[in-house]
C-alpha cells in the first residue's frame, strides 16, 4: 500500500513538473561591461517568448492551476466522506494555499495583459516570471495534497486484546448451580409379593 502511494506520488509529481513545458529563458544578469559603463538592458534581458506566447502560456498556467485546485477539492471531499480528520486538515491547508496563489496569479495575469497592451517589456517579463513561479508553487501544493496521509497509516486501528486461556481450564462455568436432576432410576422392589 505504501509503495503504491509512493509510486503514484512520484508519477504525479514528475508529470506535473514535465507538464510545465520549456522553462522561460532565465533573465540574463547585468553585464559587467566595466566600471562606469551603462548596462545594456535592452539586449541582455530580452525574453525568448513573444508577448502572444507569454499570454498563451499564462493562460495554460491558469488552466493547470484551476485543475489542480479542482483535484485538491476532490481529495478534500473524499477526506470528509471518510471522516478522516487528519487527512482533511492536511488537504484543507493545501486548498487555502492554492487559492491564495491562484489569486496572486490572477492579479499577475491582469498585469501581464496591461503590460502587453502598453508594450512594457520589463513589466511583462516580471509578471510572466511571477506567474511561472506561482504556477510551480501550485503544482507542488497539488502534489503535497496527494501525499496527505490519513488514518490509514497514522491510525493503528481499534484496540485488539488477545487472551490466552489455559486449555486445561474448562469452558463451562462450574460456578453455576447444577441443572435440576431427573430421577430416572428403576424403583426398588417393594415386596416379594408385588411386581
Amino acid at each position, binding site marked *: 500500500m505504501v509503495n503504491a502511494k509512493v509510486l503514484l506520488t512520484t508519477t504525479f509529481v514528475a508529470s506535473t513538473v514535465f507538464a510545465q513545458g520549456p522553462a522561460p529563458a532565465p533573465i540574463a544578469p547585468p553585464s559587467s561591461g566595466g566600471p562606469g559603463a551603462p548596462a545594456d538592458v535592452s539586449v541582455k534581458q530580452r525574453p525568448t517568448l513573444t508577448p502572444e506566447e507569454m499570454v498563451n502560456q499564462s493562460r495554460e498556467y491558469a488552466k493547470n492551476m484551476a485543475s489542480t485546485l479542482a483535484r485538491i477539492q476532490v481529495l478534500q471531499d473524499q477526506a470528509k466522506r471518510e471522516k478522516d480528520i487528519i487527512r482533511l486538515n492536511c488537504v484543507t491547508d493545501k486548498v487555502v494555499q492554492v487559492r491564495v496563489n491562484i489569486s496572486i496569479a490572477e492579479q499577475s495575469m491582469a498585469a501581464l495583459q496591461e503590460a502587453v497592451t502598453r508594450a512594457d517589456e520589463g513589466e511583462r517579463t516580471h509578471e510572466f516570471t511571477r506567474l511561472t513561479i506561482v504556477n510551480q508553487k501550485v503544482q507542488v501544493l497539488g502534489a503535497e495534497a496527494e501525499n496527505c496521509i490519513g488514518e490509514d497509516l497514522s491510525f493503528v486501528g481499534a484496540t485488539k486484546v488477545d487472551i490466552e486461556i489455559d486449555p486445561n*481450564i*474448562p469452558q463451562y*462455568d462450574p*460456578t453455576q*448451580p447444577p*441443572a435440576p436432576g431427573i430421577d430416572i432410576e428403576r*424403583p426398588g422392589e*417393594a415386596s*416379594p409379593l408385588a411386581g
Partner: protein
Amino acid sequence: MNRRLALWTALAGTLLVARAARAQGTAEVTIGYQGLPYKSSGESNTGIQVSEGVLLHVGAGAEAGYDTNVFYQNVDPIGSALIRTSVFGDLSNATRTGAAGRISFDARAGVVYRRYQSDNPFVQNFNNAWMPTAGLALSAGGGQFGFGIADTFARLEDPPYNEAQLVPITRYNNQASAEGRWAPGGGRITATLRYTNMIDIFQGTYSYASTDGNYLMLDGAWKWLPKTAVFVNAQQGYIFYLNEAQATANGKESSYPLLVTAGLRGLLTEKTSATVALGYTNGFYGGGVSTGGFWGSTYLDLSATLRPTFLSRIVAGYRHDFQNAVIASFSYNETFYASYVQQIAGRLALDLSGRYSHRNYQGQFVDPVQMVTGREDNFVQVGASLDYFVRNWVYAGVGYSLLNNNSNIPSVEYLKQQMFVRLGLTY
C-alpha cells in the same frame, strides 16, 4: 478426540441404569453403563448445517448382548439375549465452534427400541419396549440478566421384579423448569431463581407412586475467582401424589422437602474442580413420620474432578441426603461414586464408572412386613465401555453393566449383568 471426553447420554437406553451425578454443572458425570449413541457437547467437526445458525446432530446405534437376569431375581435368574437400537436428532443454534450467541435453543428427540430374544414365555411377555425421549431448552441473555426454560421428557419400560406379572414397570417422567439469572456489575455476584416441575407417572404395580413435584430454588453465588464461587442455595419443594386413594392405601403422604446449603463450587486449580455443599434438609412429610435427627437433617455433597491430561478425567464424590421413595416414605442415602474416562491413542475411548449406595428406608412401607423388619439396601452399580473410533462419527466397541442389590430382605436381592457389543454413528 478430546471432545469425546465430555460425554452425555442422549437417550433413555441407559436411563434405567444410569444416574447423573449432579455436581459439576454442565459437565455432568453419568454413572453407569453409557448407552448408544452418544456425542459430546464440545463436538466441533460434525453436524449438518441446516441453515445459517442452525446445526443438526444425528445419531444411531445398535447393541447386541446378553442379560443374565431379566427379572432382577435372587433365585434362578432368567437370562436372555438382548438387542437395543436407538436413534436421536439434536437441533440447536450452536455453531461448529460452539458459540451460540445471546439467544440459544436446543431441541432433541430420540427413541430406543429394546428387544429380548428368548424362548422363555415369561420373557416373551416383555419382548419389546419403545422408550422415546425429548427435550427442549431455550436461553436468552447472558450479561446482567438471563432467562431460560427447559423441558425434558422420557418414557422408560422394564420387566417387573416378578416374572409372573404381566405388566411391565413403565415410567413417564416430564421435567419442566424456568429460571431467571441476575449478575449485577461485573458478574462476580450471581443470583438464580428457578422453578421446576416434575411429573412422574408410573404404570403397573407402582401406579400409586405417581407424583407431581414442584420446587422453587434460589441460589446466590459470589465468584471470588473467575471460575470459583462460594454459594448459598435454598430450595423448597412440594410433592403430592396424583392417585390419592392409591397413595393413601400404600401409606404415601405429601411432603414439603426443604434444602438449605452453603459451600463452594468451581475450580481449585486449572485441572481440579470441586463441589462442597453442606446444609440442612427436612422432608416435612405430612404423615407424621419425617426426616429428623442431626445426621438425618444434614445434607452433604462432596465431589472432585481431576483432569490429569487433555485425554482423561477422573471424578469422585460422596453424597449424604434423603430421597423420596417409592417403596417407603423416604430413604436416607449414603452414596459414593467414581468415574474414569480415558482416550487412548486418539482412537480408543474408555469409560469406567461405579456407584455404591446405602439406602436406609424409613417411614411408611408399602410392604407391611418391612414395617417391622425395616429395610436397608446396599446397591452397587458398575458400567464400562470401550469404543474404537473408526472415524470421528462412527465407532464400535464393547460394554458391560452390573447391578447388584444386597439387603436385609433377602428376597429383594439380585445380581444383574449385561454384556454388549455395539456399533454407533453420531454426526
